[in-house]
């Protein structure tokens, strides 16, 4: 709580002093050198658009419908080709199938070489086995991504954030009756996926860098036996399946730069 107040105070001081410097020195407008970074989401089921509570057919004829597909994305960073890093904000994002875009703030113009982030919550913030880190009850701001979430993205008993929470149902015969529920609650530090994607693009001040994060929820189930591989809380007996499903999610997730045709600058 205190840091927050101090932070606000500090901000206030910085902005007042900044005002003084704002007095016009010359008439030349200061060149805008900042680039807006947006993360666009593209959720699919194979070639179809993906949404919750919609029926899709797998290649083996099983029908599936997802009721939950939420995950944490953390510490997004843009790296230039000299290894310089721009930490984007917010540091943590909770991503659901109904979001289309996240505003990741600004970077300086130049070369955007790589886009790095993690699926999950970094180990310093994630509490595990009773160690102190960040807990949902630390937040009075109801919109903070690490605060409590409606679908429950935190295990109180094993203390840690659930990185990826996916639930749904499968209809084996395709007869309109759902036969089996599947639940994949994936988390613990070992499960975090650190991703790094090549952008290799030059951006100028005033432009927008649009990065696209796509998840293919058909690919997620590709090679999963929905008769047996249906439930994991990532712990103990469910650990092996948890690792597998986290790998599945990692495979289903791709990152690209939005092609120039879509560049909105």
């Amino acid at each position: 709580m205190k840091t927050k107040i101090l932070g606000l105070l500090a901000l206030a001081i910085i902005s007042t002093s900044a005002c003084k410097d704002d007095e016009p020195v010359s008439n030349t407008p200061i060149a805008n050198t900042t680039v807006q970074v947006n993360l666009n989401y593209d959720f699919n089921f194979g070639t179809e658009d993906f949404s919750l509570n919609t029926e899709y057919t797998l290649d083996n004829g099983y029908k599936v419908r997802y009721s939950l597909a939420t995950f944490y994305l953390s510490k997004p960073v843009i790296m230039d080709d000299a290894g310089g890093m721009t930490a984007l904000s917010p540091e943590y994002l909770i991503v659901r199938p109904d979001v289309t875009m996240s505003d990741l703030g600004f970077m300086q113009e130049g070369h955007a070489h790589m886009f790095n982030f993690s699926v999950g919550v970094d180990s310093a913030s994630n509490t595990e086995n009773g160690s102190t880190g960040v807990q949902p009850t630390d937040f009075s701001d109801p919109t903070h991504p690490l605060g409590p979430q409606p679908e429950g993205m935190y295990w109180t008993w094993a203390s840690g954030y659930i990185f990826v929470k996916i639930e749904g149902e499968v209809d084996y015969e395709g007869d309109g009756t759902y036969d089996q529920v599947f639940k994949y609650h994936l988390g613990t530090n070992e499960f975090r996926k650190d991703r790094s994607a090549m952008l290799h693009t030059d951006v100028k001040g005033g432009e927008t860098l649009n990065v696209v994060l796509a998840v293919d929820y058909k690919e997620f189930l590709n090679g999963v036996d929905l008769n047996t591989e249906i439930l994991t809380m990532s712990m103990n007996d469910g650990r092996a399946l948890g690792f597998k499903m986290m790998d599945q999610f990692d495979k289903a997730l791709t990152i690209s730069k939005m092609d120039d045709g879509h560049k909105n600058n």
Partner: protein
Amino acid sequence: MATKTTNRNWKGRLALVSLSLFIFSSCIKEEKVVVNSSNAVISLTIPHFPSMEMESDKLITRERAELGEDLFFDPILSRNFDISCSSCHLTNLAFTDGLKVSVGTEGRMHNRNSPTLFNVGWHPYFFMDGGNPSLESQVIGPIEEHREMDLPFTEAIARVAADANYNEKFQRVFDLPVSAYTLSLALATYERTLVSYRSAFDEYYYYGDTLALTNQEKRGLALFKSEALSCVSCHQFPLTTDFSFQNNGLYEDYTADPGRARVTNNLAEHEGKFKVAMLRNIALTGPYMHDGSLSTLSEVIDHYASGGSQHPLKSDLIKGFTISADDKAALIAFLESLTDTVSYKKVY
């Protein structure tokens, strides 16, 4: 983000500037409650206990504790408005429920026995497997747990916030709206005030009242501390636990509940290890052990005397012993002397 200012020096100073409430005094049998303003900081200084670890934004005030108490007894936090924290942590049973394992909403069975909440403010981590780091985040557990109150925490916050009475109180007490932070802090603050420190044993052992224990109870205490029984090695004074995780040889097979391994995924080192239980008020908190499988203190002693199972992770201290009927009665009498009949009174 809240600051993490858990730091002993800072706390030491806080204790000095705060209005100290010395709640133990060997010569005066009544608490000296020196709280004159409703928002005075209560410092729970119990001379023979270690100081309570607390972050600087989590100080105990009477108003916060009262707000937490209201919530603790209010079924508003359960999906069906049918159970409250106090349904499983009953005041008259030292905040346990007298059942083998707890029963939550719609009669759903838990797999564990309800532990006492007395002195919970001293625990370094929560639950029998230590999977949770704070009294604040622990609060989410029972509220969301399917076999307890079964309500998403976000809904619990929304419900409490929609209650005009609570809303007004939260604003007044915290100067903040109902949120994950304030709701959990209120409950945690109330829980920190649940202290038990004035049993006959305390009077005898720490305050020199030689008559506080009978000769039989004194003999029981000596057995408890004896090399042969080694109870005190794990159930260390003054809190009667060292908070370590130990396998006390209850079972050969811990598949039903692997204890600490449940949260570490490390069966090789942690299978069957549970947080050493507190024994204060033990006469009131049966049945015993994580699953309530032992009904009486007599059965507990029989278990330790037998040496327990052959589990490879069983502590070396659980080696078995022979005990006469007379000595067993003395040990039970000592355990019963850990019952505290005065701490039920509020400290605020």
